[in-house]
């Protein structure tokens, strides 16, 4: 990757002695290298979290550690003010329908997730345009981070914006850095990236496409726990719960735009 692999807080040697290893809401100038590294780490982490379309349950420890890393980066970016810049760029860039497509491609649900999500509380998800600060985030802190992948599936146009925002970032920082971090911003660290569902897509085909998609797919929670939600039944209730849950799993699978290979595989095993 980079010549220096260590993610030090302060990549500018001139600043290091002055700021030392202090963390927290300390005013610190961002070098573009550091921002780039940090953004790259964030992107990498989110991709890692997305790679859960396996046949075997993903490693919970690994997922939790990656999620904690993402959270840590988001917190720091919020303090730096770069978080809001990025989310605004996102909002300005694309229409909701595109984002839905991108997200669907990345967060392709399996029948398992569909079945599992039936039990979870339906979480309200708000349109990405809710980056406007007046939206209250009652949302769970983790739901936002799953939307960051949307840019990954988007047109290359995103990359330009990222560069723009980076440039903006380095210019704006001296002034931003002076600002007291908006307390609402803190609340919205994780709340700004929610997508409203059902967002009315202009295309009726799209509407049909997503009619069966459970909104709670788009939560980080899904990534971490979608496979794990069955424990709510208790370990000894598996037999009892098998019948009510088996049916929705299959019906959702057949109606949802799922991976046909996956379905075939499962049918093979069941038969």
């Amino acid at each position, binding site marked *: 990757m980079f010549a220096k692999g260590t993610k*030090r807080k302060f990549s500018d040697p001139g600043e290091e002695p002055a700021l030392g290893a202090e963390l927290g809401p300390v005013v610190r100038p961002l070098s573009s290298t550091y921002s780039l590294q940090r953004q790259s780490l964030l992107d990498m982490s989110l991709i890692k979290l997305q790679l859960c379309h396996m046949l075997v349950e993903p490693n919970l420890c690994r997922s939790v550690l990656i999620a904690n890393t993402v959270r840590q980066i988001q917190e720091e970016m919020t303090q730096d003010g770069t978080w809001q810049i990025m989310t605004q760029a996102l909002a300005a860039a694309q229409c909701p329908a595109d984002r839905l497509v991108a997200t669907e491609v990345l967060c392709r649900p399996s029948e398992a997730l569909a079945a599992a999500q039936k039990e979870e509380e339906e979480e309200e998800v708000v349109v990405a345009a809710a980056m406007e600060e007046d939206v209250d985030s009652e949302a769970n802190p983790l739901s936002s981070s799953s939307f960051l992948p949307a840019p990954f599936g988007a047109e290359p146009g995103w990359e330009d914006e990222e560069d723009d925002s980076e440039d903006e970032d380095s210019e704006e920082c001296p002034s931003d850095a002076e600002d007291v971090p908006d307390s609402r911003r803190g609340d919205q660290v994780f709340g700004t990236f929610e997508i409203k569902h059902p967002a009315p897509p202009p295309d009726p085909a799209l509407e049909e496409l997503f009619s069966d998609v459970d909104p709670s797919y788009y939560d980080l929670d899904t990534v971490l726990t979608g496979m794990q939600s069955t424990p709510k039944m208790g370990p000894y209730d598996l037999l009892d719960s098998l019948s009510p849950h088996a049916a929705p799993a299959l019906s959702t699978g057949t109606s949802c735009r799922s991976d046909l290979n996956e379905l075939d595989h499962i049918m093979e095993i069941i038969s």
Partner: protein
Amino acid sequence: MHDICTTTFFKDIKLEEPTQLRFKIWTFSFFKNITDIISTVEFNHSGELLATGDKGGRIVIFQQEPESGNQPQCRAEYNVYSTFQSHEPEFDYLKSLEIEEKINKIRWLPQKNAAHFLLSTNDKTIKLWKISERDKRPEGYNLKEENGRYKDPYSITALRVPVFRPTDLMVEASPRRVFSNAHTYHINSISVNSDCETYLSADDLRINLWHLEITDHSFNIVDIKPANMEDLTEVITASEFHPNQCNTFVYSSSKGAVRLCDMRAAALCDQHTKIFEEPEDPNYRSFFSEIISSISDVKFSHTGRYMMTRDYLSVKIWDLNMETRPVETYQVHEYLRSKLCSLYENDCIFDKFECCWSGNDSVVMTGSYNNFFRMLDRGSGQDVTLEASRENIQPQSVLRPCNVSTGGKRKKDEIGVDSLDFNKKILHTAWHPLDNIIAVATINNLYIFNDQLN
């Protein structure tokens, strides 16, 4: 198929320092397990048996050959004793996910009679296996032929008593108990209690207490699952019972803390009795700090006074009487600290290395990359890096300690950090409880070494 090759190498390490490394000369036996990736290695309490589990759900047990007077130096002769399929792959229909048959842990029970018992576990199910020998068989049945077919009852005219006759040794493994349906998350540890009646099993979020005789229920003793799974930030990574105190156990977490619990305090041990955690070094703070502080293994010393933890870069020895910081810290491969980003990218940073104590607790051992493993002598403070590699071992050649160079100038016989093979990792090692014999598992091969007695 097992390829057995026994060779003896002598290496006399003369050091400048007055005290020499105790483990200076090693003999090795080499077994190749070409079928599958080894996932766990464990000696039994006498050291006579060595069990390995693999990714295919198989267990292979090796038995030490009785020492021959001619070759006192070759104590590391282990031959295959028994092979059996412990766990089969399963499919969870509810979640549409496969349950791997990979054996995560094996733990032997203390031996009570002629048979040997061990617990083996995959992600979801624990099984108690009985391994017994049979060297006699009954012959002379009245109702059955020798080939097992039943005789026509009307053809029997006389009555005889069947007798036992010696036969070729047969080792049988039979499942005696199956402990299932108690873990929603992946089981990472099992540990037999010193009372020899109970054992614990730990998954990512819960620890259960079982009685060896009872399979249809267990007691939950630790539950760190948050009410809201979105608040989950910490998981259980390993757990072990104290070797002497049957009421005490510890569990380690992904945040680098070890909690000691006393089962006498409460039925549910969510409130720890002690917590062992070292404050983070601010000089090394980075986005990867938490990940590398995650503890991959925790082991009590044989005496029970100390506890060892393994995190990504170091091994720490803790005195159970002091929670604030470890009494000893050893760097395993500090040269990786500058490579954490790459190791995060290729997922190596999540590798779970195990660690083990020598029989007298004076030396600890753990694995690394490039098929290196490290031995750390607590008494002298010295350490050695050795390599478990077939290419480097030939008759008449010398098994030498390895060094990894970090600077620009590389000495002879050193290997650069960038030349390390991160696919060759030694995650599982075991030390004979009574002798200086060690078992080291690379991905596909098992190496057994013993030190030379003077």
